[in-house]
């Protein structure tokens, strides 16, 4: 199994996943509206512009993480519905390629979701990132997305094809993504200058996000084979 074939598999799987999503419109018509709805419901629950402005960064990432659950469930519903994952396994497709491909497709969807949620925060919660804050925000979103997509693909693969996966996935995934919630929220607070925190204070948090992304993308690529190989 050489590297170029792994990447070729990854590219094919990612393109396939994105094509399925593009044609089915499930993400655009259901998951993205859900995420915006969560942002509106937060506003009802917290009921104060000042509080919303204060907690906007955390809410953006909380809404992201809730939506990740749906995206992951969706990416594996596509695979298991017609036994596609079994077919891939029996065909001897490189599991590392499958992992990387599904992670890339999930990451692409997540970036769209995050862009939407940040826009929602700007419009609904009066978040106001400066140009330098925007650079921090984009970098944070990219690094956090790699981590979330890797860990989502990994745990999604674990829960794929078993009974009760809808309820199991949140229980497995949410504790694991806590570091991303902490790191991304703190970095975003700096980007939005919440409570007058300087933009420069946000950069160290990227270290945490980068470590998380590195660990789970590498471990995921290695361990994914033994999770789905049954």
């Amino acid at each position, binding site marked *: 199994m050489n590297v170029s074939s792994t990447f070729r598999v990854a590219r094919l799987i990612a393109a396939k996943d994105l094509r399925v999503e593009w044609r089915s419109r499930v993400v655009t018509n259901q998951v993205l509206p859900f995420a915006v709805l969560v942002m509106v419901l937060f506003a009802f629950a917290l009921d104060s512009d000042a509080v919303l402005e204060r907690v906007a960064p955390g809410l953006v990432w909380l809404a992201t993480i809730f939506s990740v659950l749906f995206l992951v469930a969706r990416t594996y519903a596509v695979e298991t519905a017609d036994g596609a994952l079994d077919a891939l396994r029996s065909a001897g497709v490189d599991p590392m390629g499958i992992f990387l491909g599904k992670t890339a497709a999930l990451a692409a969807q997540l970036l769209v979701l995050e862009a939407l949620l940040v826009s929602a925060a700007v419009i609904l919660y009066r978040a106001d990132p400066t140009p330098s804050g925007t650079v921090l925000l984009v970098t944070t979103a990219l690094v956090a997305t790699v981590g979330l997509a890797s860990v989502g693909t*990994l745990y999604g693969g*674990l829960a794929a094809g*078993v*009974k*009760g996966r809808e309820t*199991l996935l949140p*229980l*497995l995934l949410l*504790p*694991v993504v*806590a*570091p991303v919630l*902490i*790191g991304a929220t*703190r970095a975003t607070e700096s980007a939005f200058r919440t409570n007058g925190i300087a933009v420069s204070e946000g950069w160290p*948090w990227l270290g*945490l996000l980068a*470590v*998380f992304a590195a*660990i789970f993308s590498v*471990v995921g690529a290695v*361990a994914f084979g*033994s*999770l789905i190989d*049954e």
Partner: protein
Amino acid sequence: MTAASVDTNRRERVTGTSFTRGLGAVTLVGIAWLVLFGLVVTPADVNQGESVRIMYAHVPGAWLAYLAFVVTAISSAMYLFRRTRSLVWDRIAGASAEIGVLFMGISLVTGSLWGRLTWGTFWTWDARLTTTAFLFITYVGYLAVRNLGGTHHQRARRSAVLALLAVLEIPLVHFSVELWNSLHQEASVVGNTDVTMDGLMLFTLFLGVIVFTLMYVWMLMHRQRSLTLQDMVDDIGLDVALAARRAEAGSS
């Protein structure tokens, strides 16, 4: 006496051996000793008063839970990496995790009760406390994964990978919570830590750790054996289960 109930009696005997019976007896004596020392013989603390007695169950309970999770991680690695992978390792991992979750739950409850009495609050967002809560939830998830079904080796592989992922996850969570916490600079509720502990109290705590460790080994051996029997029952298959249900229906 139906066939099914005779069978149950026989199974109950199978998980006990003379070693576990001896260990069990020693453990029970140890618990009685611990109760006597913890509740009667040791004095109340100067600062904490009577609430210090919670510590004699809380600290050994937390120790047992961490020990159990370490054993789960090691057995999972043994299952995954050894050439001759054996379901014995998987069952030890599962049994150990069950005991760990139970005692982690007990220490979280006793810990927050003690916190309420001593600090005036059930919970603080201290890194160790928060990590412990995450550990608890992570292993509840692990046990859920063990019950997903499939073949024994499917269960074993899935849960072993998950147990090793938890080993990665927990330090990350701990580290991030620590960073998060240091930012908030909350006043430390744990007073000065250089308090010298009364010798008798220290001994009782030590006794608790020993007794709880014995109890862990005892429970682990029984649970591992009952899991083996459970797997055997699964292997025998649906026919036997159906026959047993029919026998039950007939006898009632």
